[in-house]
């Protein structure tokens, strides 16, 4: 297993290098002066000082040298600066990423429980009423725009009933987890909805697929109880493809958080990405993209591990 992991991680490195090179040279193509990655022209005091900074930072060097310097800085955790606010990108990410991860994880858990649960029931009761409800839910969930769903729940639960706050991550200064739990309810549910629908559909299809397999028939022919057939024989095998999308969903949730965070004024990485794209803050866009790419590569390793754990055929290859 350890060898397997090391191999996977080593295979990740050229991938990351390639992506980082793409990111860097894409950055080079943008119309922005690289000095703007450090100092917003609006805030700049004078051309002379900027030139001095440019020289002292080696921005006049050839691109290839700058690429490796940039890469080296990235590895050291120095991600550069936002053009717009002048803040270090590392600080931005350190501050905002936890908010997004928190939201993403909560909605991941929610949608996993609901999605897999209903998907399972739906498959077991194929063509029954649960299945019908589940299927309609599956389609409706991927059809309603997330932001619209968000607006609707804000209108109902925050404005009409006033039960829940309509935005933000916490009341000012109240950082304790339980003090701000109710801030998470609406965004987490809204975020979970599309994913629940997708998981539901996947689980249902995967289960139906497995239920048609001969080994289910064989299991039944052994005379074991139905629940055992479903949970022990069918679900465990059906879980593998579901798990794959489940883990791959985490980075996708970060992408999805862009809209959710905009609706709920959630101060996470999604709103950073959005505001940096609207403001043309390329360094932030690129670094976050790179991070998401890294996150995906890492989660693909997790997918491999999970698949290996679930499926001996993969483990013994």
């Amino acid at each position: 297993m350890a060898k397997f992991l090391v191999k996977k991680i080593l295979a990740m490195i050229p991938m990351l290098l390639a992506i980082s090179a793409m990111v860097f040279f894409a950055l080079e193509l943008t119309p922005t002066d690289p000095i703007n990655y450090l100092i917003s022209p609006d805030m700049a005091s004078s051309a002379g000082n900027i030139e001095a900074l440019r020289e002292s930072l080696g921005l006049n060097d050839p691109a290839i040298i700058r690429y490796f310097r940039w890469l080296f800085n990235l590895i050291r955790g120095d991600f550069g600066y936002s053009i717009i606010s002048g803040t270090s990108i590392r600080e931005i990410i350190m501050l905002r990423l936890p908010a997004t991860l928190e939201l993403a994880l909560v909605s991941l858990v929610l949608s996993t429980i609901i999605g897999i649960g209903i998907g399972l029931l739906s498959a077991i009761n194929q063509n029954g009423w649960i299945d019908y409800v589940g299927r309609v839910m599956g389609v409706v969930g991927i059809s309603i725009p997330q932001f619209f769903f968000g607006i609707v729940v804000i209108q109902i639960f925050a404005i009409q009933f006033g039960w829940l706050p309509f935005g933000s991550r916490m009341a000012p200064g109240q950082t304790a987890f339980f003090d701000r739990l109710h801030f998470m309810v609406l965004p987490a549910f809204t975020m979970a909805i599309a994913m629940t629908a997708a998981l539901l559909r996947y689980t249902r299809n995967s289960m139906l697929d497995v239920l048609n397999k001969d080994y289910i028939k064989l299991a039944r022919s052994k005379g074991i109880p139905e629940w055992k057939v479903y949970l022990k024989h069918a679900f465990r095998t059906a879980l593998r493809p579901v798990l794959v999308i489940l883990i791959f969903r985490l980075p996708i949730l970060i992408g999805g958080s862009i809209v959710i965070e905009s609706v709920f004024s959630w101060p996470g990485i999604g709103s950073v990405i959005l505001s940096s794209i609207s403001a043309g803050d390329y360094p932030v866009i690129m670094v976050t993209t790179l991070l998401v790419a890294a996150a995906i590569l890492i989660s693909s390793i997790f997918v491999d591990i999970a698949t290996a754990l679930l499926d001996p055929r993969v483990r013994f290859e």
Partner: protein
Amino acid sequence: MKKRIAILMVLLLSLTLAACSTPTEPDPNGNGDQKDHVFYVTILTGDTTDKFPHLWNNRGAIFQVTTFRSLFLPNAELTEVKPDLASSYEISEDGLTVEVVMKDNLKWSDGQPLTAADVEFSIKTNLKAAVSNGIYTNAFTKIEGASAYKEGSADSISGLEVDGNKVTFTLTTPVGNFIQVLGQFAIYPKHKLENADPLELHNNDFWKLPVSNGMYKVTEFNSGNYFILELNEHYEGTKPKIEKIQVNFIADAIAAAQSNKLDFYNTNSTDQISELSKLSAYKATPVDILFYRYLIPNIKDATGKVNPTVNDVRVREAIIRAIDRKAIAESLYPSLAALSNAGVPLDHSAYNSSIDGYAYDPVKAKALLEEAGFDFSKTLKLRMYHTDQTSIDFMDAVAYYLGEVGITVDLAVFQGDATSELFQVRDYDFALKNLSAFGFEEWYGEYASTNANFRNILGGETAFDELIERLNASTEAAERAEILKELQVLEQELLYKLPLLQLKNVIFINNDRISVPSSVKFGNPWYNHDIQFEAWSFK
């Protein structure tokens, strides 16, 4: 569908209940009685959230003016100054020598003495800093020897002398607002920042827990969440009644207001104004500030290459005449926007009422376009960098009005960052721009041939240069008014910028909790001025 909704409702409900069953809203400062004696202010996340915002760019936030002082303290109009760190000043007759005397026994919040050396250090560092508001750079480069120091050919500034508690500035040309600029310029502690790189001063770790010189000092910094200001025992002035200020980094001011964690806030967003006005606790005070919203034409670049679409002044006049600025202002910014015809507001004493103002007149606009031989088959590129809904609505309306006189408009938001797009890439005919100005000098300074940015779109026209120089040098009110009137005639004639509106700012104070003396007058919230914070108290 119904079932689905029902299931969702149940789930949402159960989570709601779970959330509510946790102890609701415990008073974080739980002293039993309902009032918590913390003054709540906010910074919107989106700004830097891991550091105290440095003061050489924006200076006017309430937590900035109460922590850091300048040599002088301006009034709300920013015209007169009171002593602050300095006790007095004197300007020579020719306006070239300025003598400032510091108060004695001043101390930083860490107990170290605050002396003229800190002033000298701050000005020298500012000249080398990469990030600084243009008003400081403009004023300080006029000090004798400043350029040599900046370029590194001299170790000290010959025109900046410190003698005990007296600082003497020798200027190369008179600077009309030198004292006002010193009234804004925040003094930094030399003993803390001496070894910092001026180019990256704004990112220095000093700002995580800065040593201050105002009424308050920063005592706790919780990155991304909040920081706490408490009384600075080394402050020599009147001790404020409010003992603690909490500055929260938040994403949404309305949410903070609804949770009663917002005592002071200022904004020019119509949505926020409308929402906050609905909360009975808040008292709104609109303030007139120099906040311009205007279209800039991309006429010609620094090498003289001309953009034929907008080069003809008749086209520019036609465009300003085609837009019903007044109707847009009234419907989109009710009671917040005023029509703007020039750099000087219409109700200002220096406004030149003889200028035309180019009122809404689509017929004339069409005639002008035809007269100028405008090519109606061409698409006019209209750009903006604003992403808030009101600005988008605003520009949609502008595009509509231009369409009404037969111009095909391509309206879009810039892809890149605003400054690069406006002055380097320059792929547009007209762009919407904002300017929040300290004084008229900044509005007119944009016309100067030396303006590093605008010379790229105005081609370095020198028509304004002489008047601008005179304005910069003049301190006398009547003389300034004369110059301003001339400038207005000139700008109206040349139309290098198309003024649309001026926006007010609205200050909201939580009237249920805070009492503010009636003598307090609010000015431009972006700049340092006396708000008598020491007299504010809890009700």
